């Protein structure tokens, strides 16, 4: 019994040493790779964050996919389809990155379908007009980029590398979205109305995308220490507001916030109070489309079950035939 206790203590000591070495690596900006030792909490935090990010890409295909069949011309139709397809690709890279941490894609899907895993709440809002394809590109992808660019330098290697590819495509999407709004803003009065309405609906949910205020974000401190995260929610939100407040001038439209104004002293824009009650309600499942989005994902997964089973069965048959042939 005594020897067992000593052994446990030794192990605990080792764990502490390992953690120290791990933190030293992080501090020296050495990337953590899948086979490296890592604290269990670091692994779990990454699984949570990367899978949440992957789910956001996949659920995020739905609101925009909603307009592929109604895109107003062939060029826009092709661009939108390619864009939504890119998101499926991002989902793939990210699921693969998460898999390096010891969780399977099927397990992650299960967590999404059961509601255990979250995805970005922004996709629980409806796309009601073509202008929403513009607003999603400009605001939603814009906010996503703000969050994601620092992730290209995140401490976990596979995640950082996936993000480099994701960011390249996202910045393209953001420009496409802005261009849709620019075209509408220079179009007919009906089109300007469409653009105004869309920005009115997407502005506040977009700035909520950066997450709760810093003093209410429980994971931020540890994530910053591990260099998973490099900026706080409020820092990124401020950066985003500053950029949008300038870009809206090119569109000759208005951001729906009467308190938005330049603060000379701070060198930043001040902006109004976010409706945090709405934020938490949507996270809790009470957004306009939470049910539709999750139902659509579950339906695709359940209706695809026989297809995946057939593919597996056929692959086994082929392998067996090949083995028999060789024998």
């Amino acid at each position, binding site marked *: 019994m005594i020897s067992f206790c000593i052994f446990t203590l030794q192990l605990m000591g080792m764990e502490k040493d390992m953690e120290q070495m791990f933190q030293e690596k992080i501090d020296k900006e050495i990337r953590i790779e899948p086979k490296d030792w890592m604290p269990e909490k670091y692994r779990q935090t990454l699984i949570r964050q990367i899978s949440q990010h992957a789910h956001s890409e996949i659920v995020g295909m739905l609101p925009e996919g909603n307009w592929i069949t109604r895109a107003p011309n062939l060029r826009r139709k092709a661009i939108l389809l390619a864009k939504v397809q890119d998101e499926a690709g991002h989902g793939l890279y990210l699921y693969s990155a998460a898999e390096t941490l010891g969780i399977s894609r099927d397990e992650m899907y299960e967590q999404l379908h059961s509601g255990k895993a979250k995805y970005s709440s922004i996709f629980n809002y409806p796309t009601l007009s*073509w202008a929403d394809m513009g607003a999603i590109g400009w605001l939603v992808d814009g906010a996503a980029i703000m969050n994601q660019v620092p992730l290209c330098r995140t401490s976990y290697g596979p995640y950082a590398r996936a993000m480099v590819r994701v960011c390249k495509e996202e910045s393209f999407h953001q420009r496409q979205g802005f261009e849709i709004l620019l075209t509408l803003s220079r179009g007919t009065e009906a089109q300007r109305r469409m653009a105004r309405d869309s920005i009115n609906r997407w502005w506040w949910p977009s700035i909520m995308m950066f997450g709760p205020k810093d003093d209410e974000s429980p994971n931020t401190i540890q994530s910053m220490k591990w260099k998973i995260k490099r900026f706080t929610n409020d820092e990124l939100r401020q950066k985003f507001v500053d950029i949008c407040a300038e870009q809206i001038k090119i569109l000759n439209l208005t951001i729906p916030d009467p308190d938005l104004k330049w603060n000379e002293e701070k060198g930043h824009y001040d902006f109004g109070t976010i409706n945090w009650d709405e934020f938490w309600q949507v996270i809790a499942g009470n957004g306009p489309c939470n049910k539709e989005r999750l139902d659509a994902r579950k339906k695709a997964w359940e209706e695809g079950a026989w297809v995946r*089973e057939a593919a597996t069965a056929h692959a086994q048959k082929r392998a067996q035939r090949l083995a028999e042939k060789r024998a």
Partner: protein
Amino acid sequence: MNTSLINYTLHLADNALILGHRNSEWCGHGPALEQDIAISNIALDGIGQARNLYQYAAVLSNNGATEDSLAYLRDVIDFKNLLITELPNGDWAQTTLRQFLFSAYQFYFYQQLEKSADQQLAAIATKSLKEVTYHLRWSSEWVIRLGDGTAESHDKMVKAIAEIWNYTGELFLPASYEKELAASGIAVDLAVIQPLWEQKVSAVFAEATIAIPEKSFAQKGGKEGIHTEHLGYILAEMQFLQRAYPGAEW
């Protein structure tokens, strides 16, 4: 002759657009992420081919038509796509079977069109053939996988054949404009590609352990503007913005 060439080009463009549109309905709803990407990619190729062909038809029309006026401002009676392309997607068996039957046709079709006396059509065929080669491989694999997968997937593939087979006869029934252009070496002689298509279908069906239906009746009319009830709904959805906001730029 110019009217026939415009009609022929529109027929090819409409095939590509309508099937591309149908396939795009899968985007975000596929049975697995990789396959969602694949079917969206095939949809995208279709829309790309349609654009090349509509742009050419617009030039030939020489009346201010554009790729978008041709796609968005014509009605059901003007569309000349094959009926098979406008059928609802059904399940994954129906979608992949339809793609296989159409891609096998398009593969041999474009191989012939590459030799067309019309250089523009020949060039579009060459460009499209690379894409169609992949569509044919991908869809053949799915027909085989589902036919020779589980009992359930086999049944679904058999059911898909029952749903779709009668729409394959039209592939090889030339419209009046095709007959005219085939005589001048512009259009593909469908009699040449029919046996190649039959051979390919037989080979893939054999590997998929499924049978070609003994009896069939050719549902036709698409090439001449007589469609199924489905096309009207596709156009109502696709053309909504252009119809609701006439003259707007997007």
